[in-house]
């Protein structure tokens, strides 16, 4: 319209093309245009301030005139209405886009913060309200994140003005109902619907015909009044200028057809619509005699949690629960934490995508960790980046209000907040954010006394939170998602046996007593302390049981989600019995079932039944020792004794058998406890033969003094050395554990020991070994010392054998186990024989 008036370059006073400037240079023209539309029947005057924000005006060098120009724009509309004496017309302060696209990662277009944007809109809105605007209009919006900033800014201006000013928001969509970056109209609706918007609709871009699909969707789904402001048809390029060719009659026909079919509350014209268009629409509309247009939409369950682009992220017909993928969590996943520590956002986005592919409906994100101070920056950076690639909405998991607020401002979608509780005052920091951005939040049933255990306590806390949220912060019930808390069932303590039932009962009661609220559970804690295979089943059965009680969402590893029908029926029954506390020993039964599974994979077979009867006697005895078969050993020994002396039996039959056992251990054919069983038979055999031995004969291959050193109580290693050494033909004097150095040395001297063997577990107690070697050295003794234990190695042996640069004469030998100790001992005895 402005272009039709003969405006001269002088009218712009050097600011040519900045039409907002005409508000102060040629108010007569602006008011005249308003009057033409008023006379055509328009009831709401859109002010001449579309590009009147600071960013746009700065392009013309008019950034210092923001207030003056917008104030004048509102005044001009008001004057026009006043001069015609119309009573029921309103001034609507127009605010167009800034030209930035904040949700874009483009270094230029995306280079503006949420706070800067909302300040820009607040400034413009304030001037328009002061100038007399009855309502504000954010229009022709392309980027949903700018819409959010615009709403926050406009709301701030409205709230501080103390006037009742309505807020209308219009986005621009193509004929497929998508905004510039693909944000669908229903997504946009869901994102803004609880942010304090009074009317929501579309304008510009297309004519009314191309808008029908979008109008239909809004009509069926929007709980808000709907505004439709089309162009006069699709623009056509004539000599480089946009022309709109739809006639006023046709325009009015199409619109009036929509008015009969759809719930539309505000109609009007955008580019190319003349007073004639408005006049025709007005006449047609009035002839329809439409009555109450504010009615509820057909679909009441408009999705609460959309993302940036996806129209409905929750799959059609999907049965509860929604799965909140839990893997992007610095406190729950080592992998995720490492990626966060290294700022590997691309890999984190891959982690989000893979969860989405595994059917996670939302993605939980927790970046809190003690290693880094920048949780706020990290979560915000991630949120902005991930919005482009992931359709599943995010769930911001933090205890810090500032972290949550920054993340919400960076994220183009609508996140779920995780979480609030009554433990501290933080609820009063977080709920204002939930309200301002129209979000939903998880609320934990926790108060100053801690986590609520009984259904009754849980309900009491939930109601208190509900009252605070709905009364103090004006939230709707559907914006609250209560977590009735999961405790581990792996305690076996009576106190916790009913904990799952209490949690489920609370879900049922909450849904009954607080209609509209949703419920959520963090599932995996229920099986904390059990084996991985048991955990998988218990988690799933717990989740499915909770759903039967009405659970809506679950924080869960999406990869592990299966329908209950795919699980083993017996395992489900065992898990259910544990969860619902049905009967005694439910925990033990459950755990033991999963141990049995492991056992079944090992087929039963008894390898002890080796035929020994047909072997010659000496071989049969050896076979008994090697196969650990006690039965009949004494009989065999007695038979052999008819032809062989006891001493010979020990030396040529029994000891070689133990040697074979030791070799089998070394090659990994058998394991240590089996060697010990052989040693038991060996001991039994020798004890039996002792009565026949010549009293004067010395059967022993040598003598050792054995001890666990002072300060050390670990004697399993020492006892193994004793058993193995003794049953290989040596005399072992065992002094036990915690033995002082002096006692060990004294015994070794009086018993004329061939070696001292010492054991110690820790670095601290191994110092005793050094003390003993030093004392032996001081006394001028040459008894070899064999040492072993977890903290002992070859180097340590070398170190302590070196005393002031000289080697200890007896030598210090490291032995890694009882068998290598035996070899060392054999070497020592052979050497001493040679030297004699």
């Amino acid at each position, binding site marked *: 319209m402005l272009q039709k008036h003969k405006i001269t370059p002088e009218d712009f006073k050097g600011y040519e093309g900045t039409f907002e400037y005409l508000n102060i240079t040629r108010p007569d023209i602006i008011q005249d245009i308003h009057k033409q539309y008023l006379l055509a029947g328009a009831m709401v005057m859109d002010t001449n301030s579309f590009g009147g924000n600071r960013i746009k005006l700065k392009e013309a060098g008019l950034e210092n005139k923001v207030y003056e120009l917008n104030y004048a724009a509102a005044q001009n509309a008001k004057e026009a209405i006043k001069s015609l004496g119309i009573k029921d017309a309103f001034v609507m302060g127009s605010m167009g886009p800034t030209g930035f696209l904040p949700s874009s990662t483009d270094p230029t277009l995306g280079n503006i913060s949420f706070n800067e944007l909302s300040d820009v809109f607040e400034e413009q809105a304030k001037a328009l309200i002061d100038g007399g605007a009855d309502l504000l209009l954010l229009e022709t919006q392309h980027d949903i994140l700018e819409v959010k900033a615009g709403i926050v800014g406009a709301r701030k201006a409205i709230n501080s003005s103390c006037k009742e000013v309505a807020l209308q928001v219009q986005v621009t969509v193509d004929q497929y109902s998508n905004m510039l970056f693909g944000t669908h109209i229903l997504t946009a609706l869901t994102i803004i619907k609880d942010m304090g918007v009074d009317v929501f609709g579309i304008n510009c871009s297309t004519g009314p015909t191309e808008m029908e699909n979008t109008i239909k969707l809004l009509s069926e789904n929007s709980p808000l009044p709907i505004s439709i402001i089309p162009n006069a048809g699709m623009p056509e390029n004539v000599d480089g200028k946009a022309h709109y060719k739809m006639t006023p009659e046709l325009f009015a026909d199409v619109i009036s057809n929509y008015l009969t079919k759809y719930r539309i509350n505000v109609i009007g014209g955008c580019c190319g619509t003349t007073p004639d268009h408005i006049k025709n629409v007005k006449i047609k509309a009035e002839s329809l005699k439409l009555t109450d247009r504010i009615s509820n939409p057909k679909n009441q369950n408009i999705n609460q949690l959309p993302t940036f682009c996806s129209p409905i992220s929750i799959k059609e017909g999907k049965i509860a629960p929604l799965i909140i993928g839990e893997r992007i969590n610095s*406190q*729950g996943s080592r992998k995720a934490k490492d990626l966060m*520590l290294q700022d590997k956002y691309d890999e984190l986005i891959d982690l989000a995508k893979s969860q989405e592919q595994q059917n996670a409906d939302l993605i939980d994100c927790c970046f809190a960790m*003690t*290693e880094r101070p920048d949780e706020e920056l990290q979560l915000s950076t991630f949120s902005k980046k991930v919005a482009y690639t992931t359709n599943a909405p995010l769930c911001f998991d933090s205890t810090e209000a500032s972290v949550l607020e920054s993340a919400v401002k960076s994220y183009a979608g609508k996140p779920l907040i995780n979480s609030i509780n009554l433990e501290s005052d933080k609820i009063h920091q977080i709920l204002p954010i939930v309200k301002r951005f129209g979000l939903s939040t998880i609320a934990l049933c*926790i108060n100053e006394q*801690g*986590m609520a255990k009984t259904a009754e306590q849980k309900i009491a806390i939930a109601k208190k939170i509900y009252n605070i949220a709905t009364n103090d912060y004006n939230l709707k019930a559907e914006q609250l998602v209560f977590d009735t*808390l999961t*405790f*581990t069932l*792996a*305690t*076996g*303590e009576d*106190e*916790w046996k009913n*904990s799952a039932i209490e949690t489920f009962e609370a879900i049922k009661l909450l849904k009954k007593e607080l209609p509209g609220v949703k419920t959520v559970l*963090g599932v995996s*804690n229920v099986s*904390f*302390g059990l*084996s991985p295979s048991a955990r998988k089943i218990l988690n799933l059965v717990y989740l499915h049981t909770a759903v039967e009680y009405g659970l809506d969402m679950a924080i869960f590893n999406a990869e592990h989600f299966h329908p209950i029908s795919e699980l083993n029926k017996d395992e489900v029954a065992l898990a259910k019995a544990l969860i619902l506390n049905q009967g005694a020993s439910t*925990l*033990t039964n459950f*755990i*033991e079932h999963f*141990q049995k599974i*492991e*056992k079944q994979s*090992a*087929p*039963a*077979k008894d*390898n002890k039944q080796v035929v020994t009867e047909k072997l010659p006697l000496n071989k049969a005895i050896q076979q008994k020792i090697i196969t650990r078969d006690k039965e009949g050993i004494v009989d065999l020994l007695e038979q052999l004794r008819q032809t062989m002396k006891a001493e010979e039996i020990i030396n040529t039959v029994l000891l070689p058998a133990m040697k074979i056992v030791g070799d089998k251990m070394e090659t*990994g054919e*058998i*394991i*240590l*406890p*089996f060697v*010990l*069983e052989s*040693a*038991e038979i060996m*001991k*039994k055999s020798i004890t039996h033969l002792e009565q026949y031995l010549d009293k004067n004969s010395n059967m022993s291959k040598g003598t050792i003094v054995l001890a666990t050193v*002072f*300060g*050390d*109580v*670990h004697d*399993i290693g020492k*006892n*193994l050395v004793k058993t193995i050494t003794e049953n290989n033909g040596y005399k072992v004097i065992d002094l036990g554990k*915690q033995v002082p150095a002096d006692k060990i040395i004294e015994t070794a001297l009086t018993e004329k020991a061939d070696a001292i063997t010492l054991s110690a*577990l*820790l670095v*601290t*107690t191994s110092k005793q070994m050094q003390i003993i070697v030093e004392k032996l050295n001081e006394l001028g003794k040459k008894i070899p010392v064999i040492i072993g234990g977890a903290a002992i190695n070859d180097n340590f042996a070398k170190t302590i054998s070196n005393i002031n640069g000289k080697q200890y004469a007896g030598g210090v030998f490291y032995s890694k186990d009882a068998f290598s100790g035996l070899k060392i001992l054999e070497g020592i005895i052979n050497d001493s024989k040679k030297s004699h």
Partner: protein
Amino acid sequence: MTQKKVINPDKFIPFINKQVLFKTSWGLKDNNNQDTIQELEKAFIATKELILSSYIKGLVYSNIFSVTKENNSITFPEHGITWEFPTVDGKNIASAAGNKLVLQVVTLGKEVLKLYEELENQGNYSNAFYFHGFTTWMAEALAQYNHNTVRNELGSRLPPERYSFGYSLCPDMSMQKDLFKLLELNENSEVRLTESFMMYPEQSTSALILH
């Protein structure tokens, strides 16, 4: 006040990690065959029955403490005790801790020593060996069992964190002296400390629980 609990072994034996017991204490190697595993399964059942028919009980001493933190140290203000922790791979117990800390000592008590010595003295070497490994992991199972309960009592939602003395994040064994003081354990308790701050009987574990 230190909480003292007596727990029947049938309650926490199910928490023994059999795979770990077989591999780390009973000598099972990756190349051992199914027969060997089968024999160890039998030994497991036999040892369990032996213990269930004995006087062995699980004993738990634990308490929740309010603490203050500064840099890498944790202070128990009421007791005038401060613990310093090293930072390993960017992790430090003090910085990971909240303002509440649970200390826990679990033991199978003196009874376990008696039975072990009896088996050794009878020359029942293999059963003594099985018994030793089994009871060592029973102490660990008991620690896990009580940790489960503590988590519910604390209302922990964060992943479990339980640290024992003598390992990299908490290497100073002498802290056990303070630990015993904080839990009011003394010479006459079922578990005591040696001169080198080891617990005796060795079928005991101590822990610091963050959540």
